[in-house]
């Protein structure tokens, strides 16, 4: 699906916990999700930290959309969190 969007000229930031699969199927901008049942956040964290983590994941996705890539590239929200 995401590749059809890209073919139509729309850059896609693919948030997925299965990023090795995303790489294997050659998605271009891949953002590491937390886990399969909750890619955008972590229910084990406090509400506040969970919200913050989700914000970082989406910021990473926006950054991915602004980035030039020429092969499947994984963007990691952890690095963007800065602690």
């Amino acid at each position, binding site marked *: *699906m995401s590749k*059809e969007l890209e073919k139509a000229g729309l850059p*896609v930031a693919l948030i997925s916990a299965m990023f090795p699969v995303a790489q294997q199927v050659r998605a271009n901008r891949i953002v590491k999700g937390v886990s399969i*049942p909750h*890619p955008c956040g972590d229910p084990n964290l406090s509400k506040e930290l969970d919200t913050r983590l989700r914000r970082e994941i989406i910021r990473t996705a926006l950054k991915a*959309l602004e980035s030039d890539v020429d092969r499947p590239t994984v963007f990691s929200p952890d690095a963007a969190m800065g602690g």
Partner: protein
Amino acid sequence: MIKIVHFVNQFFAGIGGEDKASLAVSTSDSNIGTSRALAQKLGDHAQIVRTVYVGDNYFHEHKDEALKEILGVTRSAEPDVLVAGPAFNSGRYGFACVEICNAVANELGIPALTAMHDENPGVALYKEFLNARLFCLPTTESTTGMNDAMTRLANFAVRLGRAEEIGPASKEGYIGRGIRRLVKADRTGAARAVDMLLKKIAGAPFETELPMEEWEDAPAAPRLGNIKDSNIAVVTTSGVVPWGNPDKFKTYRNTQWRKYNIAELKELEAGKWEAVHGGYNVAYMNQNPHYGVPLDALRGLESEGEIGPGKLYPAYYVIPGNQGSPAVMRRVGQEIAADLKKDNVQGVIFVAT
């Protein structure tokens, strides 16, 4: 004796080339064109009772009509097997062969056989149909392989006519369709898997029992210049939908997408949304739908100016991704892309589960 209907295009029927490509559906009950070569290979084992032929352009320009006519003239000949082609690397012809074989196999309930080069676009359609009654043999790119292709078509058609058991593609030489079969093995899956692993570690060749679909490379779409000035939309396969699942999504193998309005919303309230998906535990997503549609974070970034005001698309797109076939997902992706482009969306945040 096994009765065969042979389908060919106007060229291989010996009628003419591009100048005759608009020829309507026609039939002959004496072997014309390449049917003669096929009949010769079939010998005494089978008889071509009818040759059906049509112009390459006519078929594509009047597909529904042409298919209906072809089904009619095929049915009335009461064949045991349909053979179409070989189409080599002729795209229009290859497509027509596969379309017709599929329709005849479904409507008449008989096996259908075609042959073409493995890069003929008809092969992609053949794999998409996943039709257990439909077989396609590989050929050379050009007609230089005609004699060999006819021999193999004839042999295979006779086997189909005798209702012989046809084994897997790798053993029988037809192009794999991606149909998974249940077979009895004499050793457990664990033992076979360990065997494979040991071979792999030793660098020895081994044969997987579950080949993965091959994926084409799609070049990356150009990056967004300035995210603040870009229209952004959310697409998700998580299956998050309004509570009560108003569009009756199934938990698996969905074929349609929907979009749901979020224009007036700051967040997705638990209890007003639910996840419909049979491939993961939806409890977390039901407690907090933002795990699939991160609207709270998007609104936050919007208020901080990282996303421009009014730049977040007022709806999100969803199809539960569980067991979606690649062909369906491609079509859904194309449809969503067209819808997004119509509304000038420039970038997509895609949440996959």
